């Protein structure tokens, strides 16, 4: 896939800060909390304890100054916002690091006359929630992963959206509508989505696993001692539960017991439990199979992907998909600018620019014709329809102690 290489050289032209920010943005890093969790945990804990602090202003957090390439906005055509209330001159966004296209940011500022576009970052959903729990306010928009929405609604962190003001949601594919986390589609607008699957080194394996069942056999067979699992519980359980034909969110005692046996059976064959550097391990060949995400395809594995030596497959039994969402915070100080953004970002050409920029699949059908064909035709990013039908959204099962006990037993069994 030459497209990957092309993007890499683009990356090389940017300055180091941008590169680091870009690396930090990849799904691998931002979904995991290994390296940073010592710090993140502490800061989350402190944040949660310091609720008396009141209202930290967005400007106190890490912020990225928008870079001015006004030329990009020349292509912008004013279509919306004519009948909308006047848009404020500021927008405060709280988001994953480097997760929107800077071109789009500049276009938005130009078109709506927004002078201050504040972009603060959090490392994971936990941090976002912890900050909000500690009373952080002043933000208009955030982008949590969907399974965290019910908790955020219950805690009163986000507000209902007036969908009449976001007409572009008509472009959203119906597979991404009315899902369990927001049955009435009132609280979020889909941002992008991705899957959990199998990364492989085709040059070091006799075949490419097509299903969790084949993965299971290979872990115990030719990939023994060379398989990595990411650490997060929901992703690890996806493998045995989907292989057995159950829901990956199952909290059924007997089903989890079956899953437990499979995990414990695989445990002695694992090379590592690692969400941060599995791309490196795959790149050196130390690992040949990984239960993980697509992040390394555009990073550590990019040269190998280009030579057809590495790839990613969504197992045929189905797998987990995650979806990040745009939400408006309850006390959003600039609601009109927020609505303008939510509608703007789903204009087909604007949305396509997002996809081309951050390499995550869009839920917006109309945008696809403007997406770079290399990206659109990459099944690792845009799974085919029959695969999409087999995907299952994650639920928040972190309160189930049977799952956490099995996970702990599994981790101990790996140590052996």
């Amino acid at each position, binding site marked *: 896939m030459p497209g990957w290489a092309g993007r890499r050289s683009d990356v090389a032209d940017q300055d180091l800060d941008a590169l680091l920010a870009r690396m930090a943005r990849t799904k691998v890093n931002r979904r995991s*909390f*290994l*390296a940073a*969790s*010592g710090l*993140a*945990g502490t800061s*989350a*804990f402190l944040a*949660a*304890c310091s609720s008396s602090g009141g209202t930290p202003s967005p400007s106190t957090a890490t912020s990225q100054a928008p870079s001015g390439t006004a030329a990009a906005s020349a292509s912008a055509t004013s279509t919306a916002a004519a009948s909308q209330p006047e848009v404020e001159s500021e927008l405060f966004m709280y988001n994953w690091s480097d997760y929107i296209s800077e071109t789009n940011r500049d276009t938005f500022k130009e078109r709506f006359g927004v002078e201050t576009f504040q972009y603060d970052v959090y490392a994971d959903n*936990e941090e976002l*929630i912890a900050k909000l*729990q500690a009373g952080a306010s002043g933000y208009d928009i955030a982008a949590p992963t969907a399974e965290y929405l*019910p*908790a955020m609604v*219950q*805690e009163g962190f986000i507000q209902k959206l007036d969908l009449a003001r976001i007409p572009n949601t008509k472009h959203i594919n119906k597979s991404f509508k009315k899902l369990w986390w927001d049955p009435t589609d009132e609280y979020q607008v889909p941002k992008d989505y991705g899957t959990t699957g199998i990364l492989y080194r085709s040059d070091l394996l006799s075949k490419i696993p097509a299903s969790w069942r084949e993965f299971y056999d290979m872990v115990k067979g030719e990939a023994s*001692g060379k398989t990595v699992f990411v*650490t*997060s*519980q929901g992703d690890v359980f996806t493998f045995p539960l989907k292989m057995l034909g159950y829901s990956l969110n199952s909290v059924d005692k007997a089903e989890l017991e079956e899953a437990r046996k499979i995990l414990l059976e695989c445990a002695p064959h*694992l*090379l*590592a*439990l*690692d969400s941060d550097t599995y791309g490196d391990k795959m790149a*050196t060949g*130390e690992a040949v199979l990984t239960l993980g995400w697509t992040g390394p395809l555009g990073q550590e594995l990019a040269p190998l992907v280009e030579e057809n030596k590495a790839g990613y497959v969504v197992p045929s039994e189905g797998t987990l998909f995650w979806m990040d969402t745009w939400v408006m915070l309850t006390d959003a100080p600039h609601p009109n600018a927020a609505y303008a953004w939510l509608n703007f970002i789903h204009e087909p050409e604007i949305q396509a620019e997002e996809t081309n920029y951050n390499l995550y699949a869009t839920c917006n059908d109309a945008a696809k014709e403007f997406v770079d064909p290399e990206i659109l035709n990459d099944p690792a990013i845009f799974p085919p329809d029959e695969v999409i039908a087999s995907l299952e959204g994650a639920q*928040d099962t*972190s*309160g189930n*102690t049977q799952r*956490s*006990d099995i*996970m*702990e037993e599994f*981790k*101990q069994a*790996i*140590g*052996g």
Partner: protein
Amino acid sequence: MAAIASAPRRDAETSRFRSRLVTFALVFPTGLWYVALLVAPLLIVLVFSFGIRARNGGYEPAFVLDNYVRALSRPEPFITSVQMALAGTIGCLLVGLPLAYFIATRAGRRKGLLILLLVVPFWTSFLIRTYAWLIVLGPDMGLAGWVQTLTGDDRFTILGTPVAVLIGLVYGYLPLMVFPLYVTLERMDRSLVEASKDLGAGRWATFRQVTLPIALPGLVTGSILVFIPMMGEYVIPQILGYGKTYLMGNALVSDFLENRNWPNGSARAVGLIVLMFVTIATYLWFVNRGRGSREVSVL
């Protein structure tokens, strides 16, 4: 007369008051520091450990013992941590004692340089130093690769095993063992060793009966200094152990972040603190008892 007599007394009172004020002023910042950053967080952890997990994770006030029951029903991370920390402490002793002895007694003019060399690694981030061991022990150009070529067994690996974690632990905490040992050995009166030899004791007997007892306070301090942080170690097992050696630190991360079960995590943290107290108290008691009996035998 009365006026004359009371003047010095008032002076004394004033100076006593002043010295108390100075003491207070000196102690206050430290006291505040301890209360705010040590006592208060510990109390919060203690309170949380009796709570329940709120519906959306976190903490909800309650008074239940379930968290402790659960913590006790899952003792494996405790056990693994104690084992690793003990092994690490012994490792630090085995490497640190000869090193400290050498620097203190044999290094001569190079003493300062050697001490400096021990400190230099601290100028670099601990994380980076730990990552460096990935190369040193790794299969590409490291120890594992060397053994692989030597034995022809290409499955041989160090990284991702408890041995790698142990090496990382000993490396990371060695200076904390060496410095207290060095200080005690450096102050040792060399004539005691000469006297011992004059009185017919061999090298080993001299070491066992003279040097070791003198080094004991440093040995105890060093052991405690390395044992405690090793019990809570999180980064080294994660990086060098490939996340496969599951210690208390890793268990706490799962509890707090992955399961968002703060009460469970807090109960385990309290368990860890208690375990630490007990271990150290036992250790001190054991060491002091040993020393007491030896003093008696000397008499």
